[in-house]
Structure formats: C-alpha cells, structure tokens
C-alpha cells in the first residue's frame, strides 16, 4: 500500500518575499483580466512597485532582526541564508528601478502573442488611449520571482523550476518592443531556442547527478561525492552539463552567443532587467551549485572554470571592440563582467574565512555592477532617433555637446564599467581580484600561480575593455555632433529617479564602498548553508 506521507512543513515567514512577489504577479494577471483597460496601468504600477518594495522590506526585516536561518526552508528545497538574502535585496532593488524604467517606456506591444498589424493588435491599440500596455508588469513580476528563487534553490529540481520561471517570462518580455517589432521578436526567438536548449542541458546534467547521488539536493550530492568515487563518469558528465546550463545563463564563453542579439533586440528596460537581475540571480545560482553541491570536486573543476573565466573575459572584451551598436557593446561588456565574476567564483576554495571574503567580493560586485548597468540602460532609453532609440554608435557622436549632463552621466557609468578608481566599478573589480589573489596564497595550494595568472588575464581584459568604453566617451565628447543627431528625450520622473539613484550609488560606493561592503560582509560571513 501507499506508505503514509507526512505533511511537510513550510516556513512561510522566511519565504514571504517570494510569496509576495508571486502573489502580486497572480494579482497582476487578474488585474489584466478583469480591470478595465483605462484603469490597468494605474493599478499595475503601484501594485508592482509596492510588492517589490514590500518584499524588499521583508528581506530587510529578516536581515536586521538577525533571524537569518541556518537551515534550509521548505523541506530542504530553498535556502534563505545570508547570501540569498543579500542577492534578493539586490534583485529587488534592481527590479524596482527597472520597473520604473518600464513604466516610462510606452512602447510595449499589447500582448506578447499578438501579430503586428493584426486585428487583435489594432483593437488593443485602439483602446490604448496612450495608457500604455500592461501585460509587461505581471510578466516582470514572474521573472523577478524566478530570479529570487534561482539563487536560493537548495536542490537542483527547485533550481531548474526557478530557472524556467525566470526565463519564460523573459523570453516573452524580449519580444515586446513595439517600435522594432521584428528585431524584438527575433531576439525573443533566439533567446528562447537557445535558452531552452541550455536548460535541457541543465536538466540532463541534473539527471546524471541524480543517477550518481540518488538525490538532487545539493548537500546530498556533496555527501554522496564525499562517500563515493568523485570521478564517476556520471558525476563528471552531470556537472559538465549542469555547468553548460548555468554558464549559459550568465553568458560565459563559449555560451555567450545569445547575449548580444538578445540585448539588442529586447526593449531597453527589459535589457536592463536582464543585464542586472538575471545576471545576479544566475551568478548566485552558480555559486550555490559550485559551492554547496560541488564542495568535494573542486580540484577537478578548477582548471575548467579557470579556462572558462579567462575565455569569457577575453571574448567579451575583444568582441566588444568590433561592435557598432551600443546595446550590443554593453552586451559584450556584460559578458566580460560575467568573466570577472567567474574569477570570483574561482576564488571560493580556500579556508572558510577566505571563502567568506570571496563571497563578499562577488556579492559586492553584483550589487555595484547591477546598479551601474541599470543606470546605463536608463540613459540609453533617453537618446532617441525618430524611429526609436538611437542604437548605432555613430549616432552618439557629439552627444556631449547636445546633452552634456546626460553624456557625462553615461560616461561616468562607462568609467565604472571600465573600473576606473573612485567609481563603484573599480571597488568591485578590486574586490574580485583581491579575493582571487588571496585564494591562492594559502600554503600548499598550487593554484596560487594560476590564480595570479587569471588575475593578469583579467587585468589585460579590463585594459582592452577600457578601450571600447573610452571609445564611446571619445565619440560623445570629442567628435563633432551630426547635424541630424538623435534627440534627447525629456526624461520623466521615473527615469530621472533611476538615473539619479544609479549615479548616486555608483559615485557613493566608489567613494565610500564600506557602506555596501559591510552589508555584503555580514551576508557573506555566514556563507551558504551547506
């Protein structure tokens, strides 16, 4: 007969931020279904923002009250530990500002599945009355929910589900740009096909690991590895495929091909969300898998990660030079940054204290990079051609004369990406490199030289990367403006707020990084729940 199943327990309090986001997403769908069209936006925007803020407040409460749990929640499916909470905080802040951007971007299609020019769409347009289209809000909330779940997942199944919950809305969101419909749809399709492909790899890897360990829980896998043969082919294949899936999501070479296309095609606020939130979530997940699950296999994998990290940095930096489209360039820059983050991931094999240091560095980097990215994309939304955003680099020539303030801000973000001192980006890069060098210093660790080598590769890549960032600055400030150059749209309150916040954080953290570092340190000191 069926064995008696005990009712599981779920820590609703700990998971409250997640529940809020998903709940709000569901309510959003209902609003979309039942609220009259003219009311929708005015319901959606506060709902979305409030839920994000509420979730963030809950994260804060958990952190401040010091009740960070030390055991996984929901029967070992989700681990809401220090790093998770920090990553949640970042993601919530980033998505909050991205929603502000989305709110200002009036150019979403009525419905992801509507055909351009079809009767459906025309009808929707006719009812539009300039109130904008609102399907995007619940989709964003779902994506954010997935992002929250992804790095907190404590077993591979939950991680896979989270991966899809995060990705599926993003696939759709990519296709929502109204002005450049074909481009956008193409991005959507490419993202979808490649994303689905990679998640299939993730899943097959999970299957193999399950075959080896008899469980998909990350600590369980770790124990099984400790007990069994760590070079079991099942395990090796499993982790290789799992790695493919995860590295795809963070856009590490050689799985980076989707990023430029998707970043270019997607509506810019969505690109901002992907470039910041998704990357943060995915790196969190990578950390958790390689840290909690892979604890006993590090030696076999370090060379691989080494190569991937180096390759990612090099590919991202070098290919970015050849780009002529600003969003593509930022996409490659995002690839390069993923490489830097992987350097940090490499540096997680030392003593607990060193690990905490590396983790702190990665968390810090994620926070500052995410904010700067959102700011940069927010600026992009303001530079417009008659046909939409002015994407081609040549259009940016001489913008510094037309809009000195805007260009200055953008230049500042670029400098932050390049890691120039007194910006947050420098502090992030420093933290990562320091962590990497530190992890090689313990006696008896032959990786010391390798880590130093990786850091040197990183440094060379940063120098190369600086070239294309600087090139944009050259274009903006040192070139003569074209006669029919792009117009700079008068920014609305939301966009101004986003840019201002991003700028303040980038400057502030650059001058006084301790503010964020301290929090990251607290979050990282407890390490991941093993």
């Amino acid at each position, binding site marked *: 007969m069926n064995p008696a199943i005990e009712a599981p327990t779920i820590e609703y309090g700990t998971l409250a931020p997640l529940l809020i986001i998903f709940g709000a997403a569901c309510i959003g769908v209902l609003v979309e279904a039942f609220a009259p069209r003219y009311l929708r936006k005015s319901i959606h925007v506060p709902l979305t923002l409030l839920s994000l803020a509420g979730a963030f407040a809950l994260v804060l409460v958990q952190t401040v009250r010091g009740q960070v749990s030390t055991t996984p929640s929901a029967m070992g499916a989700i681990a809401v530990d220090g790093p998770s909470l920090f990553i949640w905080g970042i993601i919530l802040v980033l998505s909050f500002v991205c929603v502000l951007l989305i709110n200002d971007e009036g150019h979403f299609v009525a419905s992801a599945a509507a055909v351009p020019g079809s009767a459906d769409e025309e009808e929707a347009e006719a009812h539009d009355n300039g109130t904008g289209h609102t399907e995007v809000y619940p989709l964003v909330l779902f994506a954010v929910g997935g992002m929250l779940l992804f790095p907190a997942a404590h077993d591979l199944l939950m991680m896979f589900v989270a991966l899809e919950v995060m990705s599926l809305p993003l696939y759709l969101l990519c296709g929502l740009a109204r002005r450049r419909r074909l481009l956008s749809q193409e991005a959507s399709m490419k993202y979808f096909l490649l994303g689905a492909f990679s998640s299939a790899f993730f899943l097959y890897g999970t299957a193999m690991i399950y075959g080896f360990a008899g469980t998909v829980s990350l600590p369980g896998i770790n124990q099984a590895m400790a007990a069994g043969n760590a070079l079991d082919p099942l395990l090796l294949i499993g982790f290789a495929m799992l790695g493919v899936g995860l590295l795809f999501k963070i856009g590490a070479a050689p799985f980076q091909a989707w990023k430029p296309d998707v970043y270019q095609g997607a509506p810019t606020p969505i690109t901002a969300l992907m470039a910041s939130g998704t990357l943060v979530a995915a790196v969190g997940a990578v950390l958790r898998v390689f840290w909690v699950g892979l604890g006993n296999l590090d030696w076999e994998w370090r060379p691989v990660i080494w190569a991937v990290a180096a390759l990612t940095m090099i590919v991202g930096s070098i290919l970015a030079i050849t780009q002529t489209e600003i969003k593509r360039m930022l996409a490659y820059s995002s690839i390069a940054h993923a490489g830097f983050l992987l350097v940090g991931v490499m540096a997680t094999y030392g003593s607990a204290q060193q690990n905490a240091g590396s983790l702190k560095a990665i968390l810090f980097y994620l926070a500052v990079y995410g904010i700067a990215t959102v700011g940069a994309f927010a600026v992009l939304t303001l530079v417009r051609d008659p046909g939409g955003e002015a994407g081609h680099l040549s259009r940016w020539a001489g913008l510094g004369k037309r809009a000195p303030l805007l260009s200055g801000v953008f230049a500042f973000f670029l400098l932050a990406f390049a890691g120039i*001192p007194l910006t947050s980006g420098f502090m992030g890069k*420093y933290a990562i490199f*320091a962590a990497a*060098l530190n992890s090689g210093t313990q006696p008896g660790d032959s990786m010391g030289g390798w880590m*130093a080598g990786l*850091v040197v590769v990183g440094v*060379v890549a940063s120098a190369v990367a600086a070239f294309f960032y*600087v090139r944009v600055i*050259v274009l903006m400030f040192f070139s003569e403006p074209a006669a029919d150059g792009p117009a700079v749209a008068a920014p609305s309150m939301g966009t101004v707020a986003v840019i201002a916040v991003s700028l303040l954080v980038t400057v502030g953290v650059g001058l006084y*990084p301790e503010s964020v570092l301290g929090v990251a340190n607290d979050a990282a000191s407890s390490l991941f729940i093993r």
Partner: protein
Amino acid sequence: MSPWLPILMAVPVVGAVVVALLPKGSDKLAKQVALLVSLLVLVLTGVVAAGFKPSGDRFQFVAEYNWIPSFGVKFGVGVDGVALVLIALSAVLVPIVILASWHDADGVKTADGTLITPKRSVKTYFSLLLVLEAMMIGVFAATDIFLFYVFFEAMLIPMYFMIGSYGGAQRSYAAVKFLLYSLFGGLLMLVAVIGLYFVAGKQTFMFPELVGAIQDPVMQKWLFAGFFIAFAIKAPLWPVHTWLPDAAAQAPAGAAVLLVGVLDKVGTFGMLRFCLELFPDAAKAFTMPIVVLAVISIIYGAIVAIGQTDMKRLIAYTSISHFGFIVLGVFAMSDVAQSGAALYMVNHGFATGALFLAAGFLIARRGSPFISDYGGVQKVAPVLAGFFLVAGLAGLSLPGLSSFVSEFMVMIGTYSSQAHGSGALTVAAIISAVAVILAAVYILWMIQRTMNGPTAEPVKAFKDLNAREVWVLAPLVALIIGFGFFPKPLLDVINPSVQQTLTNVKVPTSTIAEKGTGQ
C-alpha cells in the same frame, strides 16, 4: 593627525564643484574663481612647506582615517621631503597653467583669425583642472598604497578629458592612447598592490608598515615588476614612451605642462618611493636592466627630438630624455644621484613647463606647431623670444639654470656609484653625458630656426607677449634661475627622505650629497 593635507586636497575639489555649478555664461567668473582657488592652494602649500621640518620625522602632516575597513584601506596622507617638493611643484604650476590657458577653451584663434580649437565649455575645463590639482596633491601625499593607486588612476580621467576635449586635431587619438597606456600599467600595478597586501599579510596598505614586509625574493621580483611597469609607462621610459609625444603634442599647452611637468613625475616618484623601498632586493637585482633602459631613453629621446618638426613633440621627446636621467638617478643607488633625481623632478617641471608654455604662446599666434612655419620671431616679439630662450636653455641644462644642478648631481652620483660593481654605472653615466651635447643640438637648433633668421611672412603680424602671458612665464623663469643658483632649500628638504630611502634599501650613504649642495 594634521588636517592640512586633507584641506589641501579639499580646497580644489570644492573649487571645482563651485566652478562647475556656476550659472551659464559666467565663463569669466569661472576663470577668476579657478585662479583664486589655485592661488589659495598655493598659499596653503606654502604654509605646509613652512611647517615642514627637514630634520623631523620622515612623514609629517600625517593624517589617517579609516576608509574601507573591509579591505584594510585607510585614507592615509603625509609628506616627506620629495613628496613635499612635488606637491609644491603642482601648487605652483596650476595657477600658472590657469593663467596660461585663460583663453584656451574660448576657441583659440590665430592672428589671421583661423580657429585652431573650437569653443568649448570653459567651466568644465577649469573645473577639470582643479580636480586634477586635488588628485596631484593626493597622489603625492598618499601614504596608503591603495589610496595612491586610486589617485594614480583617477588622475587619468580629468587629464583624458582635457586632452580629448580641448586638444588639437588628433586629440581623441592621443587621449585614448594616453588613457589606455596608463590604464594598462595601472591595472598591472593593481595586481601588484593586491599581491602586496596579501603577501605581506599585514592587513594594511600603509606604506611605512609595509616597508620591509616582503622577504621572499621571488615574490619581490614579481611585485616589483607590477609596480615598475606601471611607473615606467607613466614616467615614461623607453620603450613604453610612445603615448607621450602624441598626448603632449595634442594637449593644450597648459594641460601639457601639467601632464609632463607633474603627472609623469608620479612615475619616477613611485619608483623612488615604492619600487625601491618596498622591494629593495628586487630593485637591486633589476638595477642594471633598468639603467640600460634609462640610458636608452636618454639617448633615444634626445636623438629623436632632433628630428622633430613639431615643437611640442620635440619638447615631449626632450622630456623622455630627461626622464631617462631621473630614472637613472633613482636607480643609481647613491644618495647624490637620488637627490639629484628628486631635484630634477622639480626642475624639469619648471623648465619644461616654461618651454611648453612659451611654445604654446608661439603656436597660438601662428596656429601651427611646425618649426618650419616660423622664423625671426625675436625681431617682432623680443620678449617672447627671450623667455623662450631661457626656457630652452634650462631644458639643455645650462649651468646657472636649475636643471643643471640636478643633471649634474645625477651624473656625478651615477658615475661614482659603487652599487653594482665598479664599472657599470660609470659607463652609464658617461654614455648619458653624450645627451648633454645632443640636448644642445635640439634646443639651440629649434631656437635658431624659430627665433632667428629671416622673419617669415605670417610671423610679421605677431604681437609680443601681453601682460598675462608675461605673468605666466615670469615666475617660472624666476624659479628656474633662482633654483639654478640656490637649490639648497630644495635639497635640504629632499636629502633626508632620500637618505631614509637608501637606508630602507640598505645602501650605505656617502657624504657626497653635502658636496653636491655646494653649487
């Protein structure tokens, strides 16, 4: 804890913000504010200099604040003799540069009305200048290596914008080249900085605590390499010098002065302070290759300078030659040579600054940097020609002018240095002496071709220097001549810290330094 150095840095920053926030159309006010601020800094620097006791502690006016405890970084400042004179150099040059580039951003017009550089934002220019000044002071004052690095890199950005936005025709190329070279070196240094932190294991970046912390010779070599490459690029040393001629030629004259006069000194300053003291063994091990590079720089810079047709490029190449001397002096491992090198840093700043500015005034009149476009200037503009001559002679280290003292000290010190067996450095000193002759060739030839001879047609319309321009050049020339005859105040300040350096490097000091001051 002394508040003086932070104040010294804060004043120009505040000034920069004020200038940037001035309402539109108040260009003139912006210039005045900037000038005032820079003069205020000069005064404050004078106060600091007056309070500096050469016989006291090595680092004075020390201030330390916690900055990033997570990284072990402190906001630590303090000056020793070398740093003090370099800060003073910056403080002197900035008001002069402000005065010199009074009209640079207004759109420089030649006598016949052609526009060399278009109208640019005046406020931005002067605000950048002040920011740059703060950073220059910061970089010399920093005793925390991390802080030093931060200023070292951050300094690039205002300079980058000054070259890129306000420079000549090839400005963006030059600016990018400048930035990338420096950034690359800086990043290597960053790796070394991090490595230093962890290898030393002292949880701090404070320079005094890190001296002697690295014992492992192999590690010393690696870290030394990281620092040295960065400084060599900055200095610039052959073969990584190629950015300098472009940057200096394209930059507006004022910016070029700061670039060559102060910014590049950070490289030699860094070698003197960090490369030598932190990694003494490595420094000794690498002395010979570096000396070779320095000698090549000296000769190469001089020879190439002879072949230049562009005045600013020519001056830039002379600077490469001079930087070779400074590096040679630093690595000669004798107190005379090092004192000479430190002194040379200051004197070169004055001399090259004067030369750049004079050349800048000349170019502003004609709109062309090419030597061949001039001739017979001294007939139409005798004052200008006179200043040009003095500056040029300072560049070739004529005795009686300040450069001579330092160059002489470097050569004597190198010649007599026993650091590396008997002969090697002696040979180096002899070879580099050839450069003195070459220097005479390039400087005098340039002066002859521009100032003497038949007056070229466009030159005839030249006006002589106006009052502002005289006020720009006169202090410099005064300093050049003054320190030429009486370098003692500088040397008094410099010598103790050089002695300290050599003690840290464990090189026995001689008493020749005392003799050297007898000039």
